[in-house]
């Protein structure tokens, strides 16, 4: 998504919403989380959730605007967003694109296609400063 953001940030706004962890250590932890040193228990309060979000931002120098779902998971519920999902909201506040449920139907290229249909194909060189994280929300 970072590449799409870099390509289309002159035309559209982007907002990342950090929701409940998908693979915390106390639930369904994946081997890849251990390999990538991304090991966190599921936050039990907002302070813990904010801390993990800040770790993510710091580690990957994540450039996209960021908001954190409150501990009541209101955003997750409103958008059926867990574990990962993409939407586009148009200028009038309506859903213009609704991505499929992640991870199997999470497809950033559909967002790129939506943006390209409106603004034309845009492709800048990939940034080289920060390593690309292997986990959402930047997949």
């Amino acid at each position, binding site marked *: *998504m970072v590449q*799409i*953001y870099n390509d*289309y940030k002159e035309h*559209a*706004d*982007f*907002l*990342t*919403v*950090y*929701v*409940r*962890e*998908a*693979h*915390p250590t106390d639930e*369904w*932890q*994946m*081997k890849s*989380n251990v390999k990538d040193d*991304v090991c966190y228990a599921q936050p039990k309060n*907002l*302070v813990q*959730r904010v801390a993990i*979000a800040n*770790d993510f931002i710091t580690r990957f120098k994540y450039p*996209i605007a960021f*908001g*954190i*779902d*409150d501990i009541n998971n*209101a*955003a997750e519920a*409103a*958008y*059926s*967003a*867990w*574990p*990962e*999902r*993409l*939407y*586009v*909201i148009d*200028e009038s*506040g*309506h*859903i*213009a*694109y*609704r991505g499929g*449920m*992640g991870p*199997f139907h999470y497809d950033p290229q559909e967002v790129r296609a939506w943006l390209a249909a409106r603004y034309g194909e845009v492709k800048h060189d990939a940034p080289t400063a920060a390593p690309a994280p292997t*986990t*959402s*929300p930047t997949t």
Partner: protein
Amino acid sequence: MPLFWKWTIAVLLVILLATFLLLCKMAGGPKDVYGMVRYALPHMHSGKLKVGDDAPDVRLVALDGSDHFHIRERTGGRPLVLIFGSYT
């Protein structure tokens, strides 16, 4: 046991095995099947939102942990791409 029931049980076992193997392939392994069934599937919902619906407004917390803002504060002038996800 009648032959019919033997075949029925055998077919059911084959279906169960095939389902388990498919889940193993999707999730990564037998342990991951448990994780997926126990922790993931109950929280995965397609939802009722569809293209054309009003986008729900939700209050989010800023990275400093104390400020808040609403998704609708970020809409209006240009399209807004919403990216939901987590670290792990």
